[in-house]
């Protein structure tokens, strides 16, 4: 299936990574050229990281991280060793020793400096370690990666710098990812919770958001839904975190809400998750699973998802089983619904939507009753029973009564004669409905506006620089004006002689 193909295109096991790596047009190049290019990229990144550390400007670190996806595909152990030379003044540095140990290389070089200092900028140190982490992950040696990660995390925890936050968050992501690959989900919980506490105390937004997301994923993977719910309730998720992390967080919250029958909240979270996730093929896996869940939730709320969604190339194949399901629910056909479930049982189980789908049965029946109430002014309970393939007329009566109470249809039942009589169809414009819909839309627009205002970024202290510039310009103008007045301009000619 093409859905699998789409997922395959992503780096292995990277379904939960929804970052967008920058696309760099690649031409045919020799390996040496590529290596040189990658190395220069890495060195440039060192420069950015330095800038980030000095100016206290997280944008530069973010930029470096955005390039990580493109970089990782071209990493080799030789490049890493050469990057080490650039990063560390000596191979005696702890991190350098560590990396060489795991790469299985033995390189020693001496620098020109007579007394090599062992200090290196923490940002660069962590960035190099992160590169090695990614490299080992792509090598597919899970046990080695795991051992390396344990040591890397120890290095990371010795630092406490706010300029490191973005890098640290990324590092935790790969840490948790490797633990997941090694099936050590439960063991890492205490550590993650501890880190969450530390990050909260240090106002480390990036790490805090990342760890919360990782914990949620961890809980949901082991079906510990109530713990996940407690975390969402008690933990305060920072709104200002990176968008991709927020998208992931919202997706997990949506899952929890759906399991706990809060479909409205689940739908809102999922809409947020889908909108905030990058709309590229790199995030296809994430978007597909979010859309799958959203389709089910819409159905559970009694809505029918848009047909156009299933035509989009990204979703066409992945959502195929779900489209069949939607069709069964839309026409209220109970046997077709059961058939669809039986046919795609394994797919649904793999997607983790199976239990939610089983809840849809009542919706199918309700839609069936609704269709009948709209088509017939009067219909016998017996006919309803036959059409909906219910077991007995008695059941049919109770089901119809429940549908009336739940507001699905407007009708009354005549028990003695055994039929359902539909009431006149209500004019929707005489009810509150349009008002409510209108209010919903306005509310959405307003919150969109407010969020955009909040999302605007201003470079730190930049206004002071600008103020200074303005003042300087004014000074110069003033000088110029006085010079013109005093007629000093001729003196300029004299200056040219000196040139």
């Amino acid at each position: 299936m093409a859905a699998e193909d789409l997922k395959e295109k992503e780096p292995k096991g990277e379904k939960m990574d929804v970052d967008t790596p920058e696309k760099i047009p690649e031409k045919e190049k020799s390996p040496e050229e590529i290596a040189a290019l990658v190395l220069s990229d890495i060195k440039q990144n060192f420069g950015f990281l330095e800038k980030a550390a000095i100016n206290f400007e997280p944008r530069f670190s973010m930029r470096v991280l955005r390039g990580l996806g493109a970089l990782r595909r071209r990493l080799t152990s030789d490049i890493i060793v050469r990057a080490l030379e650039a990063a560390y003044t000596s191979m005696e540095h702890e991190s350098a020793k560590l990396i060489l140990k795991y790469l299985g290389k033995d390189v020693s070089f001496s620098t020109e400096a007579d007394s090599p200092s062992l200090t290196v900028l923490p940002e660069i140190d962590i960035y190099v370690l992160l590169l090695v982490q990614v490299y080992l992950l792509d090598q597919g040696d899970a046990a080695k990666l795991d051992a390396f990660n344990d040591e890397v995390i120890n290095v990371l925890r010795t630092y406490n710098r706010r300029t490191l936050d973005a890098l640290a968050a990324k590092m935790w992501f790969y840490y948790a990812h490797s633990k997941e690959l090694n099936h050590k989900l439960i063991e890492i919980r205490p550590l993650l919770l501890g880190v969450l506490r530390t990050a909260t105390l240090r106002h480390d937004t990036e790490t805090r958001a990342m760890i919360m997301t990782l914990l949620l994923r961890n809980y949901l993977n082991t079906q510990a839904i109530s713990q996940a719910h407690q975390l969402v309730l008690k933990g305060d998720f920072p709104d200002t975190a990176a968008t991709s992390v927020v998208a992931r967080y919202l997706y997990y919250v949506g899952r929890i809400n759906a399991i706990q029958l809060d479909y409205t909240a689940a739908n809102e979270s999922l809409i947020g998750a889908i909108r905030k996730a990058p709309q590229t093929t790199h995030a296809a896996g994430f978007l597909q699973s979010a859309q799958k869940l959203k389709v089910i939730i819409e159905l559970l709320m009694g809505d029918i998802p848009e047909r156009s969604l299933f035509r989009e190339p990204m979703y066409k194949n992945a959502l195929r089983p779900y489209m069949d399901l939607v069709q069964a629910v839309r026409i209220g056909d109970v046997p077709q619904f059961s058939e669809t479930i039986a046919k795609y049982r394994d797919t649904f189980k793999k997607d983790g939507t199976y239990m939610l789908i089983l809840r849809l049965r009542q919706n199918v029946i309700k839609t069936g009753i609704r269709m009948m109430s709209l088509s017939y002014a009067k219909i016998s309970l017996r006919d309803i029973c036959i059409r909906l393939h219910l077991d007995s007329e008695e059941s049919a009566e109770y089901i119809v009564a429940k549908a009336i109470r739940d507001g699905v249809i407007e009708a009354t039942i005549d028990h003695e004669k055994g039929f359902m009589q539909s009431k006149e169809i209500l004019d929707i414009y005489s009810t509150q409905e349009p008002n409510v819909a209108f209010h919903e839309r306005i509310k959405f627009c307003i919150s969109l506006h407010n969020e955009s205002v909040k999302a605007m970024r201003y470079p730190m202290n930049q206004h002071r620089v600008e103020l200074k510039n303005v003042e300087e310009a004014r000074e110069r103008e003033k000088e110029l004006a006085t010079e013109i007045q005093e007629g000093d301009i001729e003196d300029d000619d004299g200056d040219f002689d000196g040139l």
Partner: protein
Amino acid sequence: MSSKSFEARAHELAAAFSAKNYEKCATLLTPLKLLLAQLNILVPLPSSDVNLLVLARDILEIGALTSIFLQDDALFSRYLAQLSPFYALKDQLSPPSANERKLIALRLLLLLSKNDIAEFHTELETLEDEADTDPYIRYPVVLERWLMEGSYDKVWKATTQRSEVPAEEFALFADTLVDTIRSEIATCSEKAYPSLPLANAKHLLFFTEDSELKEFIEQRGWTIQNGRIYFPQDEPDTIENGVAMESIIENTLGYARELETIV
């Protein structure tokens, strides 16, 4: 206290339980739990002795079942909370528990009878594979499906007929569940029928005695005329318009406030 007397007490408890002397079980359980705490196996630790843990698990399971028979829901929930770390270790504990599924199914049933559907589904999500196959767990799952869909007659049959109930503990919830479906049917009837003959109502609400029906009708505040029940019709129109007006004013003021901040 020595571990010898601990085992002897555990045997005594098991004997009392199989003799269905639940009162005696309850009195035996309290000192046993104290012993468990003293032996440091009330909560399983990686260092605990596996044989002792199995014993502790069995004691707590008997406690849970006893609390079901004594109809102490809060106590039952507490026992299950204590048992859950034992069940998380199930790979290491042998022999595996024979009662685990039954107890979980009972918990599901308890949640269902309390109408705590959100918690019910949270619990159920952990049992994806068992939901269709295990006879104990299937019972509450099917009941929930019928309740949601409105097939109250099936729920009635499943709870009251002995042959449908998988184990005797499950029958203890029958009364609560029947009460639940009766009140569901009653609220549905109020909306669905303009009026209903008494005899039919008795049948619909699964009453066998007229007196029971009379009492129920009085509780709900329905009126009887010429052998028919008339349901109170609610007159929402006038009140609703008032509410609508208020909400419109509130919304409009809200929009004005938001616009003010934008412009």
